[in-house]
């Protein structure tokens, strides 16, 4: 009886441990599966027209997503313009100037903001940037994305600033540099690599966001000149086309998905590799 029990335990051991391996490789293979489908289905549909043409009227075959590509680019620009400086400065405050209580409150708030579902951020941006002026706009979309950029940037900035050893701060101050000069001329440059990768990662994250754009940028079949008109963006187009009834649009959605996925994964791959090489934990 005892022997049987031991055999049972041993077999259970082998089975369970193998299952964990299966689980791990299973999850990884999902990544490759998704990538594979996009490369295949998206790659087939990717052509020059995709990058240069506007969408055709509903029902007609062909066309491209030139306006969405430009739109995404403009939105990212706004997100960077408004979100990155706020994140950087707040990060500097937390790492270099912060007192105990207020800094704790700020950190908590940053974490809170990071956890807010993107659709709720969309509601907020709508209330602040769309309702008062009664129209959707690129600016409103950029505003929503900027809010999402901030928490990641703050965390990266603070983390990498703190990683700079105090001996550098002491060295600079012993030479007669004021606190601000020390930060600007020694500490920030030293941490710049990590901070820049954090910023890039935050932009890569919002590049793929759709929900906050649904009621801010809204989407647009045509070009969107300036900043105060609704604009299309890659994720929005993917969504619209995917749920449409036309095969051709489905095809284009795959192509757009490939482009988006490719950009996001490349940015993440690049940033994380750089950070790993520096031996610092990822954001």
């Amino acid at each position, binding site marked *: 009886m005892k022997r049987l029990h031991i055999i049972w335990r041993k077999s259970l051991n082998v089975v369970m441990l193998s299952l964990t391996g299966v689980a791990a490789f299973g999850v990884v293979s999902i990544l490759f599966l998704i990538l594979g489908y996009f490369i295949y289905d998206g790659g087939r549909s990717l052509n020059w027209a995709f990058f240069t043409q506007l969408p055709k009227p509903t029902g007609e075959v062909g066309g491209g997503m030139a306006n969405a590509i430009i739109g995404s680019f403009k939105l990212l620009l706004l997100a960077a313009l408004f979100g990155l400086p706020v994140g950087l400065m707040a990060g500097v405050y937390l790492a270099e100037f912060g007192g105990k209580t207020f800094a704790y409150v700020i950190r908590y708030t940053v974490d809170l903001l990071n956890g807010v579902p993107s659709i709720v951020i969309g509601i907020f941006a709508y209330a602040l940037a769309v309702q008062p002026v009664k129209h959707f706009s690129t600016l409103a979309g950029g505003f929503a994305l900027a809010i999402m950029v901030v928490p990641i940037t703050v965390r990266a900035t603070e983390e990498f600033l703190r990683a700079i*050893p105090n001996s550098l701060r*002491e060295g600079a*101050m*012993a*030479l007669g*540099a004021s606190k601000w000069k020390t930060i600007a001329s020694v500490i920030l440059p030293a941490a710049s690599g990590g901070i820049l990768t954090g910023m890039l990662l935050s932009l890569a994250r919002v590049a793929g966001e759709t929900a906050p754009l649904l009621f801010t940028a809204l989407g647009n079949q045509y070009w969107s000149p300036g900043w105060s008109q609704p604009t299309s963006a890659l994720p929005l187009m993917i969504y619209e086309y995917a749920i449409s009834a036309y095969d051709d649009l489905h095809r284009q959605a795959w192509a757009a998905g490939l482009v988006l996925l490719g950009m996001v994964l490349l940015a993440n791959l690049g940033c994380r590799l750089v950070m790993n090489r520096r031996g610092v934990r990822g954001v």
Partner: protein
Amino acid sequence: MAARLTPKVDKVETSEHSATASKKEAPVRFQISNLNFFYGAKQAVFDVNLSIPAKKVTALIGPSGCGKSTFLRTLNRMNDLIRHSRVVGDIRLDGQDILQMDVVALRRRVGMVFQRPNPFPKSIYDNVAYGLRVNGYKGRLDDLVEHSLRRAALWEEVKDYLHKSAFALSGGQQQRLCIARALAVDPEVLLLDEPCSALDPVTTAKIEELMFHLKDSCTMAIVTHNMQQAARASDFTAFMLDGKLIEHSETSKLFTTPHDPRTEAYITGRFG
């Protein structure tokens, strides 16, 4: 305890008198009176009276934790960076109270070299030029950089590689770079906090040699764990124990005929 205090105090005063007598001809850079230092509620330095003569090297020796580094760092107010630290007492640089002075201005006049080399992640040139740039110096940087590197006995080794990263240098070279960096702003006093403790004997000897040549233009105060170094490289030595200044006199006198039994015990290696 009280009974012992009086004879001890007498002895210190006499030794100070003999030291001051020979110093009376030489001007004094730093005059420290009744210095007490606190980390929060804990006192680390107790009522120190000391003068640091100009254009001489003063060594501070004592066992670990005796407060010599803390004392040194009050001279350029680096301890200000520590929260809840407090200085009570009088510290005068050329007659001016440093506690009333703008601390940034103070640090331009009193430079510091740290225990572990801490070059900035910049080029060798930019490291040396940093102090100059930060203090708004507008003249010809190249000449000054070269001059500082020469004073630190590093010029010959790096003159062709000025734009290489400071981290490409060896530990000893980095420390000499830090000395050059500190010298670039032409300080009146240079404080050295165990500058050779992380270095090998050959590099240590190089640094002691450059200290000898620097004396004429720069007063120095060096904290050291290494008594032989103190005996070799300094003109005056102060011995500290448990935050108190026990004895201070010319180096030769302190090491051959110390007045206080505790000084004798320390330098003969009975403790510390």
